[in-house]
């Protein structure tokens, strides 16, 4: 019942915050959000699962209750954690708490609603990562969109309506494609499944239980469903060329929403890819390995090139997220322990690092009210500690050793280089690795122009040291980044434990 408790605390907290007075909403939400954060850390410590949740693994904190019957299929409330989902749940709770802290300065309008929505999004994100029934999962998956739409649409920048609608419609259409594909899969499985429980479906798929549907044979249907679901998730990740909603959403979103968007929402896409496409369709992964790897490499290089051309700090970080997500896809398609494990690690790591970067950019924005690289220089002079953390975060993004980003990237590269499944893997790896040069290029270029040099600011604001609570929350993130960089085994062991059945069995 621990997962229910987590979700319930966040949901009830959201309601309480919603009706609380604006004045205390921020502090109240922070206190409430500490509960799930502490709970999830306790879950992390008490984790006793093993294996993969979908492939006969020992689930931790499992609970199941019948919900609905639809025809021959039953839908249940079914939640549980394994080594893949637990780190993401912890990431979610921690980032939500820090996002709340980072909203104290910039949010000064309808606070109770704002913080209520953040807690609401937290509840749904936990649900996405822990649900093991397709329908339950889908409810959470879609429910995440609503608060994020409102956060961008109400508290966003000048073009917030455009960005919010684009974000919502784009990802929602993608969800529709994915949903349709999955339902086709369930019908294609025929009698071999009797519920929408993901473990049952995954096991049936691995056992080759897929019959034809609509005149398509089993393998053809599998390919269609695989591609449909891949496209559906590709928008969420996002993978080039489905990425254009991301920079718009990031630029218009308020800082905390950006933190959650880049930190957790993008991971929903890669998490779902891993859970669905890469767990249920090993044969299709092999068949489409080269095109997927090519898209991954294009995402890395193209995303990085786009970041190089930007002058808005948030756009830079947004495009670099596209680039980083490309690494994750590459690691997944390698289909080795280190490749997929590194990709999962990179999800967590990128969540922390991009969260830190958006916070740092937010702190600068709060002080200067501009994010344009051309509008400022020498910020290190005025806010040395915040800029110091920004620089550390930037180097984390570049993959500096002993920070978590390096571990994620290195394991992905190592896992991909020797991949059996992917032909030409050394070539793909080497090409994707060039991303680490470009990322250094645009981040250092941006740093040089904004934080170094003589102090200059085009807007009429007096810049002083950053508030302590902002520094503290960034410090926590930086600490976690370094901790995971030095001792990656903390989560990597449980990740690989959950990865092995995917790679090893079934093929």
């Amino acid at each position: 019942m621990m997962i229910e408790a987590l979700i319930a605390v966040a949901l009830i907290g959201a309601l309480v915050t919603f009706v609380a007075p604006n004045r205390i909403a921020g502090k109240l939400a922070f206190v409430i959000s500490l509960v799930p954060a502490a709970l999830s850390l306790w879950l992390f410590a008490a984790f006793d699962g093993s294996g993969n949740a979908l492939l006969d693994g020992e689930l931790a904190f499992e609970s199941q209750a019948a919900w609905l019957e639809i025809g021959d299929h039953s839908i249940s409330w079914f939640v549980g954690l394994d080594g893949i989902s637990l780190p993401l749940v912890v990431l979610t709770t921690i980032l939500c708490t820090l996002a709340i802290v980072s909203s104290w300065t910039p949010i000064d309008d309808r606070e109770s609603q704002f913080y209520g929505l953040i807690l609401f999004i937290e509840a749904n994100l936990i649900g996405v990562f822990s649900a093991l029934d397709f329908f339950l999962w889908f409810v959470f998956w879609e429910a995440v969109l609503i608060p994020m739409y409102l956060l961008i649409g109400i508290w966003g920048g000048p073009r917030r309506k455009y960005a919010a609608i684009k974000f919502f419609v784009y990802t929602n259409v993608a969800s529709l494609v994915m949903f349709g594909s999955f339902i086709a899969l369930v019908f294609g499985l025929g009698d071999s499944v009797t519920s929408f429980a993901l473990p049952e479906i995954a096991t049936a798929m691995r056992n080759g239980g897929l019959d034809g549907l609509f005149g398509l044979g089993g393998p053809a249907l599998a390919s269609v469903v695989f591609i449909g679901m891949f496209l559906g998730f590709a928008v969420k990740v996002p993978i080039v060329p489905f990425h254009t909603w991301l920079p718009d959403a990031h630029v218009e979103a308020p800082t905390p929403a950006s933190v959650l968007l880049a930190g957790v929402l993008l991971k929903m896409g890669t998490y779902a890819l891993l859970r669905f496409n890469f767990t249920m369709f090993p044969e299709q992964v092999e068949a489409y390995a080269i095109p997927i790897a090519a898209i991954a490499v294009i995402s890395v290089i193209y995303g990085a090139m786009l970041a190089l051309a930007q002058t808005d700090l948030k756009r830079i970080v947004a495009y670099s997220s596209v680039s980083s997500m490309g690494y994750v896809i590459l690691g997944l398609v390698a289909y080795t322990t280190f490749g997929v494990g590194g990709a999962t690690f990179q999800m967590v790591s990128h969540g922390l690092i991009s969260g830190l970067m958006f916070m740092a950019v937010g702190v600068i924005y709060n002080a200067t009210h501009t994010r344009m690289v051309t509008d400022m220089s020498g910020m290190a002079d005025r806010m040395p500690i915040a800029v110091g953390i920004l620089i550390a975060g930037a180097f984390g993004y570049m993959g500096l050793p002993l920070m978590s980003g390096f571990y994620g990237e290195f394991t992905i590269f190592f896992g991909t280089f020797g991949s059996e499944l992917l032909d030409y893997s050394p070539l793909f790896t080497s090409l994707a690795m060039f991303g680490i040069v470009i990322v250094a290029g645009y981040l250092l270029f941006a740093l040089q122009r904004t934080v170094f040099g003589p102090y200059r600011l085009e807007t009429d604001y007096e810049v002083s040291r950053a508030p302590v609570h902002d520094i503290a929350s960034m410090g926590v993130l930086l600490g976690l980044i370094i901790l995971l960089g030095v001792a990656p085994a903390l989560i990597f062991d449980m990740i690989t434990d959950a990865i092995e059945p995917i790679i090893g069995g079934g093929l």
Partner: protein
Amino acid sequence: MAATATGPFGFAPAIAVFPLVAFVITLVFGRHLPKKGALPGILATAGSLVVSLVMFAAVAGGDEHHTTLYEWTSGAATSETMVEGIEFTFGILIDPLSALMLVIVSLVALLVHVFSLGYMNAEGETGLRRYYAELGLFTFSMLAFVFADNLLMAFMFFELVGLCSYLLIGFWFRTESAPSAAKKAFLVTRFGDYFFLIGVVAIAATFGTVGFAGEESFITAAETAIEDGTTLFGFDAETWVTITGLLVLGGVLGKSAQFPFHTWLPDAMEGPTTVSALIHAATMVAAGVYLVARMFGYYALSPTALAIIAFVGGFTALFAATMAVVKDDIKQVLAYSTISQYGYMMLGLGVGGYVAGVFHLMNHAFFKALLFLGAGAVIILMHHEQDMWEMGGLKDKAPVTYYTFLAGALALAGIVPFSGFWSKDEVLFDALAVGLEQPVILAAYAMGLLAVFFTGFYTFRMVFLTFHGEPRSEAAEDPHSVGWAVKVPLLALGTLAAVAGFVNLAPVAELLHADITFLEFWLDGEYGAVEGLTYHAYHETVAFEEGVIGSETTTMLLSAGLSLGLALAGAFTAHTLYNVPDPSRHTTKLGGAYRVLKSNYYQDEYQVWLAEGLTLPLARAADRFDQTVIDGVVNGTSTISLFGSDRLKRIQTGIVTNYAALLVGGFIGLLLVLGYLGGWFA
């Protein structure tokens, strides 16, 4: 863990931990510490030096140390050579090479810390807490890099070294130029590290191990693979070793500022002079060459890779030396001399002269640290003027600085009996010996030899312009005084620069048949060594033939005589041109070449063009493509839906009759379709 068991070696991690602790203490409490945070760094580096010396003594006593401290990660992976599972660890390898290097690095770091008291504190710089903290982190990274027992750990600390130089080069971040130089340094070396990382990944994926030493090392695995004739990633084993070796070499070329990645180094002079001393002598730049020495067994397997190292080294030695000739800034001259000297080390290692390369690395660490600190002293004397044409006549006003600087200059120029002569001569002799059989190496040797002349020339041009003649500015007339913190490191290094060469008097040994080539014995495992990582083992692996002119002794004398003669000739030319009371520039004599040299062969231009003229427009084009085409499709979808529904809604005329007609029409249509499907019209 296992480390505690083996006597003095149990303290080995402390070598790196001391500076790390100093970094943390300085960063957190620096504001409250005396001397603005210098003390923790000094104490820590002194501690590191002591422990390093203990290690050195232990190795001299016939011991070695190889242990794994911490498992970073491990997992299931099958390598190309069918090794199951892989572990990435942090470990310590203390053998003659690393023990020697640890002493050098901690000594130079200590002296730089002390010198900083005179250079930074006394000059009233701000931000010293940051400075000393970064210096501590820098020392930590380099020391950990030096004792790394595997390639991945080496790579990680190699990168951290890069980060620290970025931070320290950009120390004066309020200027425009320092951040730019820092960025360039990081980017250029990062470009090299890109290849290095591919190399690390490739080696790990190929052999299933990244260890430097022992049975489990990738070097042993590569040897086995070559013997067995295994095919690796579609190549035969030796080709694959060459490819991966060259990939790793990319990182070396970047860090050690070899052609074509040398452009960052002269710009890096934007950092404080103390930092330059540390970067050039013992840390960042030395890291590259040290890495080649560390995994020399791997390169030894591939004659192609070695020849490329030698050729690049020889070429860089000459190339950089010619550019140093026309520089006016004292630090710029030293910067180009660094590039050139590391070229020699690469040349030495590339021809299989492991001892020669390491020997020169050691000597260079001392005399280049000396010269940079000396230049720092000159800059203090000159009230922060760096243009040599504003100096002159400092000889009598600052005798300590002058004589120590002169010792460094003699060593750099390679004048007997100063340290640089012995090592450079050994490098050139080894190159000549191999070159007599290998034309490519002979070309590399010729370039290295020619560079000796230029080295002699620019070194003494610098000495004469700075210290001799008449003062050419007010600052030179009335120099600022320097304190003990400046003089002590200079004297210590000056002594070392003069005498360090005596540890390996190869020509003398040859003539007298005496066993006085101590460094060679040291690296050959006469005292203590890890099996397989000795000069002998390497020498057997290297596939180069060696030739002689007459006998070996005559060849050696010939080589020594040639290089000494050229060095003296260079020095003498400088003497005639510049050792006059009122020297002139003599640049017109160079004609068109002057412009080319002054512009550094347009190397910066093309690299800046690559970044700003090619990549940036490409990025902008990609951005335009993204905004118009890709986002255009997305927005186009919504525009089409909006446009389409705008058209479609016009059916809704508001006239009831039309609706009724549509209803009827639709009904009839439906009827017809159903009828057709039902087979009414068949």
